[in-house]
């Protein structure tokens, strides 16, 4: 019974499809209002809300089993979601299992993209927000803080975060294996479609020095360039100015090749010691495959990038067993530490059943 005092209730991508997750996702206003409601639940001693695009989870410490049920009710009412339906799909873990879940979430083991590190920041933010409002106490503080340490340990001692798993990030990683750093790397984006834009943004987020956009429709190129804080250039200058760039992201819908071998040879003659990296994300291909034979020129197409992303994903999956072993050990140890405190809360409630819920400080 004492294990029930610590719980996590929620919905994650594992059992809930995107269409349903959209309905369950909390807006900032709803999240705030819900916190007020939770604070009024008798017997709920501590709680924290984790709300991301792939999960909404409520971590709590309560002196009565009824508190978890009231959280479910309040949440379903706020989201206007059928409670019976929610109970079919919900995540509902207690005691040690709840601790293990938090550790796995923090380490990125429970993420849709296994090993992603963004979730770690999201869990930290959720905890910091709850702590700032005085909603957490000694038990959740310990569980979250130890959970962060465990997540860091997993990331440091396994290869779970190694290798990028999205095509855009694989392209950036490849550029890093060529240039080492992107701080003086100039990017040319050919095509103003969504795929190229994503890759260009990935380069910008990793500190690329400059981005230039060229599209067959100049106005579209200028529009995208403005949105990305880049510059635009006429599409017909792409070959004559090729030597100015280090990375060329090709993502046009042109039916023919837009980068040829002679143009690449000419560009390399003007920058012989500087490598040139083509990322051809177009279908049909934009870059003549013959450019790959030129010294210091590297060409990767959509299939190459997808294959590398798949390999990285498989490598991360292979690390999961090792990670879970570490997390299980850490969860066991952590649960041994907090279990007496949780049991004390439940026992005290049996002695004096009027639990005081935490009051948000702001």
């Amino acid at each position: 019974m004492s294990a029930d005092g610590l719980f996590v209730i929620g919905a994650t991508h594992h059992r809930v499809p995107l269409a349903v997750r959209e309905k369950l996702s909390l807006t900032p206003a709803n999240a705030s209002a819900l916190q007020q409601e939770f604070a009024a639940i008798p017997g709920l001693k501590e709680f924290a809300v984790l709300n991301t695009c792939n999960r909404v989870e409520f971590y709590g410490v309560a002196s009565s089993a009824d508190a978890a049920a009231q959280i479910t009710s309040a949440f379903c009412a706020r989201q206007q979601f059928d409670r019976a339906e929610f109970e079919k799909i919900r995540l509902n873990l207690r005691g040690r299992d709840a601790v293990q879940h938090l550790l796995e979430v923090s380490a990125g083991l429970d993420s849709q993209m296994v090993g992603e590190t963004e979730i770690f920041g999201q869990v930290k933010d959720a905890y910091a927000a709850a702590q700032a409002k005085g909603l957490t106490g000694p038990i959740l503080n310990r569980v979250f803080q130890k959970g962060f340490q465990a997540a860091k340990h997993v990331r440091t001692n396994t290869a779970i975060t190694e290798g990028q798993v999205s095509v855009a990030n694989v392209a950036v990683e490849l550029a890093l294996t060529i240039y080492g750093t992107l701080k003086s790397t100039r990017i040319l984006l050919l095509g103003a479609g969504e795929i190229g834009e994503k890759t260009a943004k990935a380069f910008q987020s990793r500190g690329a020095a400059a981005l230039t956009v060229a599209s067959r429709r100049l106005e579209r190129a200028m529009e995208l360039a403005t949105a990305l804080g880049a510059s635009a250039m006429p599409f017909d200058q792409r070959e004559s100015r090729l030597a100015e760039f280090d990375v060329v992201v090709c993502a046009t819908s042109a039916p023919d090749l837009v980068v040829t071998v002679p143009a690449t040879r000419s560009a390399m003659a003007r920058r012989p010691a500087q490598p040139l990296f083509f990322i051809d994300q177009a279908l049909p291909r934009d870059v003549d495959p013959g450019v790959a034979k030129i010294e210091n020129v590297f060409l990767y197409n959509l299939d190459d990038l997808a294959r590398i992303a798949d390999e990285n994903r498989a490598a991360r999956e292979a690390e999961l067993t090792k990670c879970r072993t570490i997390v299980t050990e850490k969860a066991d140890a952590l649960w041994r530490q907090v279990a007496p405190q949780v049991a004390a809360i439940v026992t005290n409630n049996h002695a004096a059943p009027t639990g005081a819920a935490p009051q948000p400080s702001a």
Partner: protein
Amino acid sequence: MFADFTDRNWLWAAAALYVIGFVQGTVSLLRGGRPSGTATYVLIAVGYVLQFIGLGIRGKAIGGSPLSNTFEVFQFTAWSAITLYLVIGVRFRNSLLGYFTSCLTAALTLVSLSIPEWDATHRTHIFGDNPWIELHATFALFSYGIFALLSLTSIMFLLRNYSLKSKRIGGWFSFLPSILDLDHIGVRLLAAGVIILAISLGVGSVYWVRDTSTVNLTKLFSTIAVWLLYTATLGLRLRGRLLARWFAWTCLGLFVLALLSLGPVDASRHSIDPKDRLHSADVAAPAAVGAVRHPSSPSHGSSTRAPKSVST
């Protein structure tokens, strides 16, 4: 305990550490993990200190830099390469440079320790009382150490280039530095090696001009040829005529050539008439040298401490 250590004991201990560095790196790679950059760096650094002690004892015994036989030349070249690795290795600590360095130095030191003939004889006071000749010899060998490290970065460049061209970037290829970093460090190492060898030749030429009979022509021509080839390679690289793979292969080939040139250089020293040797004051034709059997050399079958000085 250490008081009984001979110079060769220290050098064996250093070689053992380089081998451990190489083995732990190999085991990590075979397990699909990254070799611990810090562990490799520490092993090499400690090995470097032990090798320094060993070479120091040897230097004291022969009254100058320990360059009096093939064994010492190989040891000194390995030590020079590590000197440079310890400087640039900080930046590349998490790459495979440490692993490759431990591999090269383990090979150079083990081979030299395993061939007793290379250390069967040596000459004492090989530089006479002339510190400039000692500087000339030391710089020449130090430049070979730089070229050794250059050959390692060239191998790493070729591996990185292969991984990128063949689109195999996972596994242990992912532990290699970027191709541009490897290219830049290669050019810098080549420039440093060429400059130091040029200084060495400049210092040596002053004495050669004074008395041409003091220098063996085989040694003179092979050393100048090595310097000219490296200088030409640097020139072609800076002018953009020798790039990427071709540059790396050339650096690798030249190092093999440089190592091979040590054979004729060393042989030329032995071929000098003992009467001439007395007047010679160069590493290749050492002054006041007498071939003596080293007290701690394997041919003696003992581990007695090297003498502080050996008279001829």
